[in-house]
């Protein structure tokens, strides 16, 4: 029976407590370790469609009569369009509709950043649409842009109020500390660059709207599009069968979807609005830059007595303040902590969630600071981390639902102990070293979410959900969970995703909440279907239900009888068994978090400043692992994306005009296969969280990108004695840090440079 209860919900690091209606979750967890299907490596159930180029992405949707939209964007970082004249554009060849400020949500006369959308038009071909952009006459009242985050804070130009956390007495603790370290760390603005750009195709049939869109959150698109257009939510159908990546930037419909919907209504034809790669890199979201002024005080044995952090987050024209201070507040047991976070409102393109927003940046500063404390005290960095392990949430003493971070440290030890050997392989200008960093993130369930499991006379099972697979392997993990619970082989399970009419509400593919939320819903739906199947089988064979089970597609009786499932399902004819399931609540009064450790080995060319990552060891504590093969891909992908963040990626702005300079993929440097470390070793603690849902699985999408940059930077210090504190560690930054180290200490004690 559904009941109303208070539970914590977390999306992209934002935690809130709210009343939600949840279904009873009566299932006991499976035993730990690999089962028949769950916990065993499975190739992706939709891998062949993707690899063979058969999968239909939004980019491949072509509807009869479809028009192509193009968007007029501000050439200024801050300006107001005082006049927008669409007449000449409307008269251009092929143009069927044009709209200006106020005509569609997202189109505004006030352009708060370079590339802000002002007007849009739709034409028969994409080339005609782009050509007609030149014919839209806009008069601009150009204003002075605000581009400096510190200046924005000084002027009070903020999104929301500064967010403060205070516990204990930091000043008193610092006064008594044996060592105090103060440093400023910086992270750069980063661009998601999913290979499928943001795009949507909208088609009206009467008062019903169908939206094909590249999205991480079908339900949010449905609700927001309906609300923005003022139509009932059930009139909007959202479809995203295959999706070419999101990384956090596709959690809502975006202006392109609303522009396509409005233009489609005006033109009476379907409209496609797809961002070009350049538009993608201007206005499709970013990981905001940060300036972090941090202080740590410690006793001689490495015990942290005080932590203080001021975080300036360059959010841009719009956005929300990610929890950048979260790691400082939660990762280590420290009684005296003071943090303040500012969300600077600037004339720059708005931020969007990007794979562990806030914690990627916060862990960068904190984990570098910790190594600087260890260096000053001449202590082993791993020992310092273990000494400051938090046994309960340091913010409010709440118990963790499960925490195996000490086990991660223990497993990391042999890799950490390679450092003497690694250093000794320094050769000519190449200096080698090892660094480590800890990861902390969320990953609990985010109820509600609903699933059905349908059994038909063929003896196959269909899992129905209204969620999406952004490329993380959701279809496969859900198929494994359903197969395990049903007692069916994996090939007998079909999973439907990517269509809002295929089920009830489904969670966002974000915040590392997909498997942890939809997994339990699918399992309970499968259990319901199995129970019904056994009820029918018991009647058919004239036995007690209690002696029947389903294994490998067969109904087996405790006394030894065995019948293929089809012997029962074929009796159904057109009748069907429909099992229903929902995600149950998170444990109350407990903190559900994920943890992990990365150990990086690097080589630094001290003459050219080139940095190569030669080996990464990663161990993560994320509860039960459903698909070890897919999980290892998530970890490797997070590490590689993180290496890009660390060494090469950076959105550049013209510092006076606010123009985005890095609009193309030759200017914005993504890592390639040649930048991949020759060796990545990936392990999981793989223990179900006994308090978390019927599955005990947490999310894994975000954790592996969190600790990689500080692990690399700490390895650089180990290799060269140089402190890199700003991302990315370009060759210029590396050479600057090497020069600074030489000036500070002409002869480095362990490794003369």
């Amino acid at each position, binding site marked *: 029976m559904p009941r109303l209860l208070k539970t914590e919900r977390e999306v992209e690091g934002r935690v809130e407590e709210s009343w939600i209606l949840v279904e009873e979750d009566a299932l006991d967890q499976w035993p730990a370790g690999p089962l028949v299907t769950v916990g065993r490596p499975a190739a992706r159930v939709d*891998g062949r469609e993707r690899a063979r*180029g058969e999968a239909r*992405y939004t980019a491949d949707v072509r509807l009869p009569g479809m028009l192509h939209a193009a968007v007029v964007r501000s050439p200024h970082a801050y300006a107001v369009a005082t006049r927008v004249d669409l007449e000449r554009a409307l008269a251009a060849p092929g143009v069927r509709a044009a709209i200006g400020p106020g005509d569609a949500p997202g189109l505004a006369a006030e352009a708060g950043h370079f590339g802000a959308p002002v007007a849009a038009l739709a034409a028969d071909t994409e080339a005609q649409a782009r050509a007609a952009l030149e014919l839209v006459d806009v008069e601009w009242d150009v204003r002075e842009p605000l581009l400096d985050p510190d200046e924005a804070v000084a002027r009070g130009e903020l999104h929301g109020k500064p967010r403060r956390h205070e516990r204990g007495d930091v000043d008193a603790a610092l006064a008594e500390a044996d060592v105090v370290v103060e440093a400023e760390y910086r992270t750069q603005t980063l661009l998601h660059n999913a290979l*499928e750009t943001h795009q949507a195709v909208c088609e009206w049939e009467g008062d019903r709207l169908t939206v094909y869109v590249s999205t991480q959150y079908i339900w949010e698109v449905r609700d927001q599009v309906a609300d923005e257009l003022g139509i009932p939510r059930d009139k909007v159908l959202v479809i995203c069968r295959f999706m070419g990546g999101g990384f956090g930037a596709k959690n809502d419909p975006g202006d392109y979807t609303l522009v396509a919907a409005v233009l489609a209504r005006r033109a009476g034809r379907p409209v496609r609005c797809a961002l*070009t*790669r350049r538009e993608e890199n201007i206005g499709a979201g970013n990981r905001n830059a940060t300036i972090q002024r941090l202080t740590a005080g410690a006793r001689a044995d490495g015990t942290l007595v005080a932590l203080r952090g001021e975080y300036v987050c360059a959010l841009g024209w719009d956005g929300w303040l990610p929890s950048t201070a979260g790691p400082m507040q939660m990762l280590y047991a420290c009684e005296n902590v003071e943090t303040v976070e500012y969300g600077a409102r600037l004339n720059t393109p708005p931020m969007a969630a990007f794979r562990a927003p806030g914690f990627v940046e916060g862990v960068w500063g904190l984990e570098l600071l910790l190594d600087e404390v260890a260096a000053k005290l001449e202590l082993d960095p791993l020992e310092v981390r273990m000494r400051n392990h938090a046994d309960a949430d340091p913010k409010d003493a709440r118990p963790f639902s499960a925490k195996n971070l000490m086990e991660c440290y223990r497993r990391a030890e042999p890799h950490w102990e390679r450092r003497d050997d690694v250093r000794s392989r320094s050769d000519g200008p190449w200096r080698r070293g090892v660094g480590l960093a800890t990861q902390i993130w969320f990953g609990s369930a985010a109820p509600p979410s609903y699933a059905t499991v349908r059994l038909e006379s063929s003896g196959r099972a269909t899992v129905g959900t209204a969620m999406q697979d*952004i490329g993380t392997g959701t279809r496969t993990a859900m198929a494994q969970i359903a197969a395990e619970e049903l007692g069916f082989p994996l090939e007998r399970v079909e999973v439907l995703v990517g269509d809002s009419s295929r089920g009830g509400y489904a969670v966002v593919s974000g915040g590392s909440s997909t498997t942890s939320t939809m997994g339990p819903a699918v399992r309970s739906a499968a259990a319901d279907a199995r129970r019904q199947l056994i009820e029918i089988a018991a009647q058919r064979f004239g036995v007690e239900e209690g002696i029947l089970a389903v294994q490998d597609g067969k109904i087996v009786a405790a006394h030894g009888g065995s019948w293929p499932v089809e012997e029962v399902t074929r009796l159904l004819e057109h009748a069907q068994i429909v099992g229903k399931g929902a995600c149950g609540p998170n444990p109350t009064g407990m903190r559900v978090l994920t943890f992990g450790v990365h150990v990086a080995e690097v080589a630094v060319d001290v003459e050219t400043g080139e940095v190569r990552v030669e080996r990464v060891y990663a161990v993560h504590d994320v509860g039960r692992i459903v698909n070890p093969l897919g999980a290892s891909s998530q970890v490797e992908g997070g590490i590689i994306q993180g290496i890009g963040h660390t060494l090469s990626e950076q959105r550049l702005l013209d510092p006076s005009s606010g123009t985005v300079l890095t609009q193309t993929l030759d200017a914005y440097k993504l890592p*390639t296969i040649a930048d991949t470390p020759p060796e990545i070793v990936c392990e999981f603690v793989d223990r179900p969280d006994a308090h978390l849902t019927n599955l005990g699985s947490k999310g894994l999408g975000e954790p592996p990108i969190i600790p990689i940059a500080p692990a690399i930077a700490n390895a650089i210090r180990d290799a060269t004695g140089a402190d890199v504190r700003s991302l990315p560690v370009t060759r210029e930054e590396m050479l600057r840090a090497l020069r600074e180290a030489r000036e500070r200490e002409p002869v480095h004690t362990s490794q003369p440079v």
Partner: protein
Amino acid sequence: MLELQVNGGFYRLEAPDERTLAEALRDDLGLTGTKIACGEGHCGACTVMLDGTPVLSCITLVHTVGPREITTIEGLRDHPLVDAFVEADAVQCGFCTPGQIVSAAALMRANPQPSREEIRHALAGNLCRCGTYPKIEKAIYRGASQGSPASLLPQS
């Protein structure tokens, strides 16, 4: 009227001068397995083969192709690399995968037993934002060791 030879078949189409090969394949011939991710020749998602050589179809004008045989992912659907990619989990979102497989097939056509360095060199122009690179490397090794050299060649 333009004539194209694609995956062993012949096609006739009208195309304006500025039409790219990628647009012609996707929009005129309906071969949407070839993806356009940057449109400027920077990412490799649009890779196809011309007479067995990998080219970036998004910056190749369709009128410059001439009589050369075009091989797209649709012509490589039964290539052993497809299963090798799936088994190795070298596919995450999959948007770059067709281009990766075309580049890998072209490499193996020229060099049936590529070394790790040769794989990294040949595939360095194919970006994957999900970071499947270690699995791609593994898949190409696997494809190279399992398929006999003759079966690795695209039909021409």
